[in-house]
C-alpha cells in the first residue's frame, strides 16, 4: 500500500508526514512525528489515554484516521507548555498529585484543557463528567479534580 503525503497542523506547527493510509492519528503522532507524549492503553477507544484535541475538541486519536486530519488543528500534550513555563493545568497536576504513574495524564490534561476553554469555572460534577472517558488506575480521581479546579482558578486570575 502506498504512503500518503500530508501536512498536519500539530501544536501550531505544520508537520509534513508520509504514512500508510490506514494509520490512526495516534500512530502517526507517535511513530511518524515522534510525539510520544500521547499514550495508548487499548487502541480500541476504551481508556482515553490517547486523547488529543482536534479543532479544540477532545478526540480519541486511536479512533481517528490521520488522513481525516488534514487541515484540522491538532493539539497534544507537547504543545501545552509555553516554552519552559508549564500550563496551569500541568503545574497543578504536578503539584497536587494528579499524576502518579503519569500514563493517563496527557489524555486527561488535554480533556481538561478543552473543558476549561468551554467552561472556565466548572463544577466538580462537570469535571467528573468531562474526564469520565479517561481511565486512571492510580489516583482514585480526587487529586485530579482538585488539580483541575486549582488550574481553573489560576487561569481565571490570569485572564
Amino acid at each position: 500500500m502506498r504512503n500518503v503525503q500530508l501536512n498536519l497542523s500539530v501544536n501550531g506547527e505544520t508537520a509534513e508526514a508520509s504514512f500508510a493510509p490506514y494509520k490512526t492519528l495516534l500512530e502517526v503522532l507517535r511513530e511518524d512525528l515522534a510525539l510520544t507524549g500521547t499514550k495508548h492503553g487499548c487502541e480500541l477507544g476504551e481508556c482515553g489515554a490517547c486523547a488529543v484535541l482536534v479543532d479544540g475538541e477532545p478526540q480519541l486519536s486511536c479512533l481517528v484516521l490521520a488522513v481525516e486530519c488534514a487541515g484540522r488543528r491538532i493539539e497534544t500534550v507537547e504543545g501545552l507548555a509555553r516554552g519552559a513555563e508549564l500550563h496551569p493545568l500541568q503545574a497543578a497536576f504536578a503539584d497536587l498529585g494528579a499524576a502518579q504513574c503519569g500514563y493517563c495524564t496527557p489524555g486527561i490534561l488535554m480533556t481538561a484543557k478543552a473543558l476549561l476553554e468551554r467552561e472556565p469555572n466548572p463544577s466538580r460534577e462537570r469535571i467528573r463528567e468531562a474526564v469520565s472517558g479517561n481511565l486512571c488506575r492510580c489516583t482514585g480521581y480526587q487529586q485530579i479534580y482538585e488539580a483541575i479546579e486549582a488550574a481553573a482558578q489560576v487561569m481565571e486570575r490570569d485572564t
Partner: protein
Amino acid sequence: MKVIGKPRRRVDGRAKVTGQTRFADDLVLPRMLHMRLLRSPHPHALIEEIRIEKAKAYPGVHLVLTGKDFPVSFGILPVTQDEYPLAPEHVRYVGDPVAAVVAKDEQTASEALDLIEVKYKLLKTISDPVEALQNAEPRIHAYSELGNIHRLQAFEFAGRSNEVTEAIDASDHVFEDLFFYEGNTHLPIEQHAAVAEVDGEGKLTLWSSTQVPHYVHRSLARVLQIPPTHVRVIATPNGGGFGGKCDVCNHEMTVAKAAMVLGRPVKICLNREEVFYMHRGRHPVLMKFRTGVSKDGKLTGMHLQTLVDGGGYGSYGVASTFYTGALQTVTYELPRYKFEAARVFTNKPPCGPKRGHGTPQPRFGQEIQLDKIAEKLGMDPAELRLGMIVKPDSLTANWLKVGSIGLAECINQVVTRSSFKEKYRKLPHGRGVGIACGSYLCGAGLPIYWNKMPQSGVQLLVDRSGQVTVFCGATEIGQGSDDVLVAIVAEVLGIDPFTVRCITGDTGITPVDLGSYSSRVTVMMGNAAIQAAAKIKVMIAETVSGELGVAPNRLVFANGRVSCDDKSLTFAEAAGLAEEKFGTLGSVGSYRPPRAPGRFKGAGVGPSPAYSYTACVVEAEVDPATGWITVPKIWIAHDIGRTINPVLARGQVEGSVYMGLSEALMEEQVFRRLPPKLSHALVHKIPSLLEYKSLTSLDMPEVDTILIEDPDPNCPFGAKEVGQGPLLPVMPAVANAIYDAVGVRIDEIPITPDKVLKALELKAAGKEARVGPTTFPAVPYPQPVEVSPPWEGGDGSARKGAEKPKLKVSAA
C-alpha cells in the same frame, strides 16, 4: 524536619505532565525491529508440530522463534521454574505463547503470525478448583504435589494437637462462614512493553516496564545462557504496576533472544487483550472460616481453610497461597490458629500478586465474619474490634513480630468523622454504613531466592558543586519511590530535594534492590538511603568542624547550609572542602530486615520489619427495587508511621480505595466455554477495557483520607508502607454497609446488583438472605505443621512436621 512530611511536587512530576517521561513503548532505537507473539487458542493441549516456513518467507520478516529456541525454563520462585519463554510442547491456557515473529513493523509481524501452522492435540480442560480436585489427570504440571493440586499447606499454632478445634467447639459462640473472592486483574493503563538491544560491546540491554529488574536480570542470564555480567536491565517508569509487572515475562525473554540472534534492537508491546492473558492477578479464593468467640467478644481460636485457583503456572502462587493465611494474626488477638491451604492448577492465565497479594481475600472473609459476630453479640462492630487489637511490640500465634500499631486511632478517626455510631443500624432502609480494618506488610522479610545479602542497596556520590547523585535499583512504578529516595537523602543532608539527581532501576549501574513489590521500597530503600547519606554527612561534618572550629555534633545540616550558630558554609562549599580532605566523595548504604523469630518450615512468609494498619467506613445506598449500589462516601484512616510526602501518601490511599471499591463492585477476571462446535475452549470472557468493568470518575465517591502517624522504629523516619494496606478494608466495609442498608449478606466478590437483588428475593421469601458459596469441597489437606505459640513456650520450631498425603485419586 525540612523535607519529610512537607507537601511537595514529586521529583518526577514535571516530566509526567509534559509528556517527557519515557515509558518502554516510547523508546525508539536505530534499526529497531518489532516482535509479536503467537498465542495458543486452546486452554490445554500438546503441540504436535509447528510449521514456520511460510512465516519466515513472508516479506519483511526477519526471524521466527519457537519453543525449540528456549531449552531452559524459568519462574519467579526458585521452587516453580515451570514456564518457558515459548511453550515447547504443552500449552496450559488460552494465550500461552508458542511462537514469536520479528519483522520490520508490527503490522507485518501480525500478518506473519497467521502463517504459522500449529498442530495441537487437545487435552481435557481443567476449568476450576473442583475439576482440579476431581481430575488428577491430565496433569497440567508433572511437578504438582498431588494430581492437579499444585501446593498443599497446613499449620496449627497451638499448645497441643487439635487444640484449635477443641477451643472453638468449647467457645460461647461458634461462627462458620464460607466466602468466595473472584479473581481480578491489575489493568495498568500502560500495556507491558520491552525493547532489547545488543550494545557495541556485545552485551544485552533490556528496557522493560517491569517492577522487578533484578529478578528479570537473573532470569535472562539463566534462560539465555549468558553470563549475568553481560546483561543490563533498565526498568522504565511503569505506567502503573499494581503487581502486574512483578513477574518475569515471556515477552522479555523472547525479545532479548531475538535481539541477540539478529544483532538489532527489537521491541515488543503487548496489546490489551494480551495483558489480560499475561495476568498474574488476584487468585480466586474459596474460604471457610470457623471461629470461636467468647461472650465478651474475644476470639478463642480460628480455623481457616482456603482453596486457591492458580491458573496455568506457578508464578508467585506458592507465596500467594501462604499469604491467604499468614497475616490473619497481626490485627486482632488470636490465641490459637489453624490454617490449611491448597493451590490448584487450572487452564487459565496464571494468577500471581495483585495489590495486597493473597491477603485481600481472607481479609474480606474475616471482616464480614466480625460484622456477623458483633451483631450476634449485640456489640458495636467498632468497639468489638477496638477490644481485640494486637498489642504493640508483641509476637503473634504464628511468631510474627509486630511493632507499632496505630489501628485504635485509625478506628476512632473513621468512626468519629463518619458519625458511624449515629448511622449504624439507624439509617433508613436502603442506606447503611459498614466498617472494616486491615493490615499489611512493610516489605517481605525474606528475598525471593535464598541469600543473606542486602535486600536494598543505595549509593551516593557528592561533588564539589554540591551535586548529589543517588543510585538505587528500586523501581518507579508511579508510586513515588524516586521521590521517597530523594526526600530521605535531602533530609539527612539538609538540601533541597530538587538538587538531588536520582538514578534508579538500572541493573547495569545501580546497587541491587529487589524491586517494587510487597510494599518494601520505602522501608528497605529508605533505611539504606539513610545509612548512605549519614556516612557522607559524617565526612562533611568532620571537615566543616575543622574549618569552623566547632564540634561536629553541633553542626546543623539544613536549607542547603552546614551551620553552627552564626558560622556557616554552603553545602557546596562544605562538599568541596570534604572532597579536598577525603578525595572523591562517595558512600553506600544497605538494608536487610531483622531476622524473624519463627523457625518452622513456612515461617518465611509473613514476617516484615513493620506492619501498617488501616480502618475504613463505607456508606452505601442500595435501591431495593433494582439492587443498584451507590457509594456516596468513604472514610479511611491509615497508620503510615510517618508521612514522607503527604501529597503522594494521600494519593496512594485514595488509589487503594478506588481499586478496592472497583474490586468490591465490579471487577472480575472470568471465563466461559465456547460452544462445542467452536472448540469448546475455555476463554477469557472479557479481555477488553470496555467489558472488564472498572470504576470511572462518575462512580468514584468522595474520600475522606486521614493519615495516622505512629512512627515505627524499624522504618526510615518511622515511615511505613501506604501503597497496598489501604485497599484491604474497602471490600468488606462495602459488604458490611450493604448489610446495614438492606439486611442481606453478599459473601462473595464482586458484589453486583443482581446478587443483591437475588438476596433480597430470598429475604422476601423468608429464606436466608445471603448470596455466597454454600459448599466447600473435600480437600486432602495434609497433617498440619504443629507449632506452639510464643506464650506456650518453645522457640518457634515445629513440634511435628507436615506429612504429605500420597496420590489417591484414580485417573478420571
